[in-house]
């Protein structure tokens, strides 16, 4: 593999761009699941069939149809190291499932890493578009365009009644998963978070941690996404998510103002303590790091802390993950070595900032 830029930079280029409401919403993501009509799904495909599906889909990329989107290199998962795969997972560019068990798996990566196209994951084709801040509608329009380009070149499995057919019945119909990554520290500090998240699940949305299904919410980061894919149109799904996320943003902002008005000295103390620990700690585990980084991010957005930028915090979110730490260190690390490397990474990044 000639090009490894994706594993060198912790922060994807798209994350450096400005976006609306970035003080609460880190990113917006659309994922579209599609399958080819004439091949069994990856689960039941023989190695030859999996390879056949891969070749058809890579054929679309090589035909130049995608060239309007910029340079889109394709990587076969079999040519990557375990650590490189882990780094891609930590950057949200591939799913743990593709990294783990796929046969004839591949990744097509857009120029800003804002497009990642997975081949032979649970479905033959998964198109993912990422946008900074709260831009879920923009993300859908872009992803839908890429979907149209693929459809010109391959025959999709589509049913008149059930819509786009997917391996898992929870994706059938539109095949889309729309999600926004939200930072909700003030709702957590004021004890309102559980009430709000429970309400969210009652309107057909799901809440997950930073790394999707099965991951724990750390650092007050929550991924809110649609649950239903059948019986609603894409725009209904996206409007629903949009209006719920809008309300959560408003609640979070109100809670931040209340924190400042009612308990400023205590909040300020908490934020500055966390900043101090990040600046001087010698050993820090990932859970503590993400909690402290969340405090500092809140401090930045409350205007209580100015010596650190949002870009740096976004970068540290990825560069302090185990895979990235080890990739950069060039070898596997024990738990304690990892916690020390993590502390060093944060220290030197924050020192550069001041």
């Amino acid at each position: 593999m000639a090009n490894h830029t994706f594993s060198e930079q912790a922060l994807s280029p798209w994350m450096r761009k400005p976006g609306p409401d970035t003080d609460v919403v880190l990113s917006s993501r659309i994922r579209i699941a599609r399958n080819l009509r004439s091949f069994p799904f990856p689960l039941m495909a023989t190695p030859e069939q999996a390879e056949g599906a891969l070749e058809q889909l890579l054929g679309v990329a090589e035909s130049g149809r995608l060239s309007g989107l910029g340079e889109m290199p394709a990587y076969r998962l079999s040519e990557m190291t375990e650590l490189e795969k882990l780094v891609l997972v930590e950057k949200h560019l591939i799913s743990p499932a593709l990294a783990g068990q796929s046969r004839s798996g591949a990744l097509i990566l857009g120029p800003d890493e804002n497009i990642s196209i997975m081949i032979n994951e649970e479905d033959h084709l998964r198109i993912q578009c990422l946008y900074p801040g709260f831009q879920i509608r923009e993300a859908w329009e872009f992803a839908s365009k890429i979907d149209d380009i693929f459809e010109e070149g391959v025959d999709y499995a589509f049913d008149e009644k059930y819509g786009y057919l997917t391996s898992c019945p929870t994706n059938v119909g539109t095949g889309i998963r729309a999600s926004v990554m939200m930072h909700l520290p003030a709702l957590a500090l004021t004890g309102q978070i559980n009430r709000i998240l429970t309400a969210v699940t009652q309107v057909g949305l799901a809440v997950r941690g930073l790394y999707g299904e099965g991951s724990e919410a750390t650092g007050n980061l929550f991924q809110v996404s649609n649950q239903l894919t059948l019986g609603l149109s894409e725009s209904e799904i996206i409007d629903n998510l949009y209006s719920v996320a809008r309300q959560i943003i408003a609640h979070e902002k109100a809670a931040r103002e209340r924190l400042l008005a009612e308990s400023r000295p205590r909040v300020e103390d908490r934020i500055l303590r966390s900043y101090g620990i990040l600046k001087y700690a010698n050993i820090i585990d990932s859970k503590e790091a993400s909690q402290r980084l969340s405090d500092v991010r809140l401090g930045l957005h409350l205007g209580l802390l100015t010596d650190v930028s949002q870009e740096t915090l976004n970068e540290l979110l990825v560069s302090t993950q185990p895979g990235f730490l080890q990739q950069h260190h060039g070898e596997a690390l024990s738990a304690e070595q990892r916690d020390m490397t993590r502390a060093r990474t944060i220290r030197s990044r924050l020192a550069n900032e001041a």
Partner: protein
Amino acid sequence: MQCQECGKRQATLHFTKIINGEKTELHICESCARERGELIPGTASGFSIHNLLSGLLDFDAAANGVKPPQLRCENCGMTYSQFSKLGKFGCSQCYKHFADRLEPLLKRVHGNTVHVGKIPKRAGGRVKTKREIDRLKKEMQGKIEREDFETAARLRDQIRELEREIGS
């Protein structure tokens, strides 16, 4: 036993690896296992949506105490019991072969069984026309109620034309 990685927490996961007769053991706590990610088999995902789903799939049978007939997809060879274990279809034809049991499942998961979203340009031509016919029929009904029979007649011809196109 303490975790070999952090030396702090109780080890709750125990692995034995034998490669070429050489045996290595690993005793590790859950949080270290999670950090190591997919380097360790079986810890990548805990309880997932698929576990839940397979519970739903056998719901009817479990409730009635009836053993379901062994359905099998002729295209990919997946059996219904395989499907209900994995919670995933094997190919697009599975949707046809398991159709009878699909409706209640989709109803339970999505509250609905009919797709109303995007339609692919090439594969979905027929569906697009069908939706257009439905739309025109509704419009025609409205015109009739308002006694605008001239427009209604024009819409009727349009509908007939489209119906001929898709041969229904």
